[in-house]
């Protein structure tokens, strides 16, 4: 067991653990903080795979920008503690939920177990120094071979922006819904 393996195991455990903690928290701020922790641990994994640029982007964009945005949203919405997260699910559906999740994990473990770990070639310590994963290398391939998906990603981001604007734009007469009469009935209908 070399240093690479130890680093890998530690950061992998942290990543999975904090991801789990993130979704099981009822306190949204704690959730966000766990997510940042998970992303940091993942960045370490990227470094181990020689994807230096990717790991930097992960930290700057996700842990930096997007997470801060999330925190702002959480604070603006002023959610505190266990409030405002709806009713608790019934015991049966809670048990099913856990059961299904655990089974899924078991299955995934089974799949991954199919391929043994080859510790010899994994990790930055053992890798020959070339420009793999550098900004230049990523950029070169991104703007030539992967130009099409790259441009598509641009379209995707544009779409997401337009969509977000449409959804969040203030509706003039939102308070007095036209057409439909009483809303509680509407909801009931949908839940048939």
């Amino acid at each position, binding site marked *: 067991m070399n240093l690479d393996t130890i680093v890998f195991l530690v950061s992998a455990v942290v990543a999975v653990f904090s991801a789990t903690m993130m979704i099981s928290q009822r306190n949204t701020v704690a959730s966000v903080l766990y997510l940042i922790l998970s992303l940091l641990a993942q960045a370490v994994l990227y470094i181990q795979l020689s994807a230096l640029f990717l790991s930097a982007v992960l930290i700057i964009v996700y842990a930096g920008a997007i997470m801060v945005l999330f925190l702002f949203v959480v604070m603006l919405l002023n959610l505190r503690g266990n409030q405002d997260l709806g009713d608790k699910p019934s015991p049966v559906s809670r048990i099913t939920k856990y059961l299904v999740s655990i089974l899924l994990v078991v299955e995934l473990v089974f799949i991954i177990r199919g*391929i043994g770990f080859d510790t010899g070639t994994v990790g930055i310590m053992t890798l020959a120094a070339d420009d793999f994963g550098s900004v230049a290398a990523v950029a070169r391939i991104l703007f*030539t071979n*992967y130009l*099409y*998906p790259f441009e*598509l990603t641009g379209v995707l981001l*544009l779409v997401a922006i337009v969509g977000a604007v*449409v*959804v969040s734009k203030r509706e003039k*007469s939102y308070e007095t819904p036209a057409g439909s009469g009483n809303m509680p009935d509407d909801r009931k209908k949908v839940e048939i």
Partner: protein
Amino acid sequence: MTDYVSILSIDLSLVAPELVLLAAAALILLFIPLRKMVFLAPVIAALAFILSFYLAVGQWHYSGSGFAGLVTCDSFGVMFKLIFLLASFLSLLIARRFFVIKGIDKPEFYALLLFSVIGMMVMANTVDLVVMFLGLEIMSIPLYVMAAFNRRSLESNEAGIKYFIMGAFASAFLLMGIAFIYGAAETTDFRRIVADFSYIVANYRIYLYAGTALILVGFGFKVAIVPFHTWVPDVYQGAPTPVTGFFSVAPKAAGFAVMLRIFLYGFERIELLADIFWVLAVLTMTVGNIMALRQDNVKRMLAYSSIAHAGYIMIALVVGGSEAISAAMFYLVAYTFFNIGAFAVVTILETRSGCKSDFVELAGIGKATPYLSAVLALFMFALAGFPPTVGFFGKFYLFSAAVKAGYIWLAVIGVMNSFVSVYYYLRVIKTSYMDPYEGQPAVVKLVPSIFLVLIITAVGTLGLGFFPQKLLELSQAALFAFL
């Protein structure tokens, strides 16, 4: 890692139809601040669809690949592009009037519609999993927003949120599947996966299979395969009706375009696939039909019916082979005509004030608007698969392809299911013609755009029923170039 592709060598005609739509979408977005130009938005979108259709037709015999192999243009993809364009053009014509009446006519809608179609065309126009995924997302995000487009209606907002959450969920699985496949094959290009197939199976069988399963889940969500269908009724019912009509056809066709490509032009060698599709197809059609039996809302009924129709089309995935696939394409074209037609009628009827497309609202329209209800009846007959509508031939080709390939039980179950479906389709006709109606006769105003939709869909439904061979030849030719 030295064989980079020069940007200059890229042939843009491969993506010309997409580019037209993109330009139109950008133009509409630019117009939004200019309040006086807003009325042009649907016109621009319609013109873009027509131009794009023309360009796509031009691609029919032009097969080629570009962008470092990430774009693959073939007549199979073109066939699906034409379906998307037809469906979205018809939906556009329906939507405008409805949105004006409901007071939610905003230019963004047309931009979103265009974007969504771009995503679908990207999906159909490639054999690379990454590009397929990007196409799927470009298609889906506008769909989520379109579902929630009627911001004044709680149902519509709920539909958008639900669709978004479930869609994100499905995308996660899809992405994981692609990762597994990449892990096994070290490529996302489909032709290379197929070329190395036996090697991959020998060494990384479990990754390949798990990846395939997850990809199935991801796209199965879009075409609403049971048990990944749960969002459909809520979203279809909540979304604005013209949007629902669009949902029921175009994204489904996109999902099938990818599934047919992935699962039948490469992965069919995974022998387990046919069996799992058999089970899922039977589940999908049966659950869809049985649930549709007891609905009080026409839109919700049509939602379940669209699930059932996905089940019929899945027969092609079980059977495989060019005959079944061309049958599936035939069915998708046919389905575009009569399902959009049905939604067009439902939309018109919903423009009456206070209507939510419940069954009871259909009572008496047989007397009040005899022609409209006759057209509605025609579409119901087509959905139920009666001759001489095209619906009959769609089912006939699918079932006979199943029988020819030896899947007799599948055909039997399909036929039985379509008999069950007769009940609820006829219920629409029965309600509109036979149920007593009290109060004022319905006032329904037909505007030219919707009239045009009804003409196109009705002529398509009946005309292709009398002369189905042209379409069948076309869908066979689409495969011919590919094989």
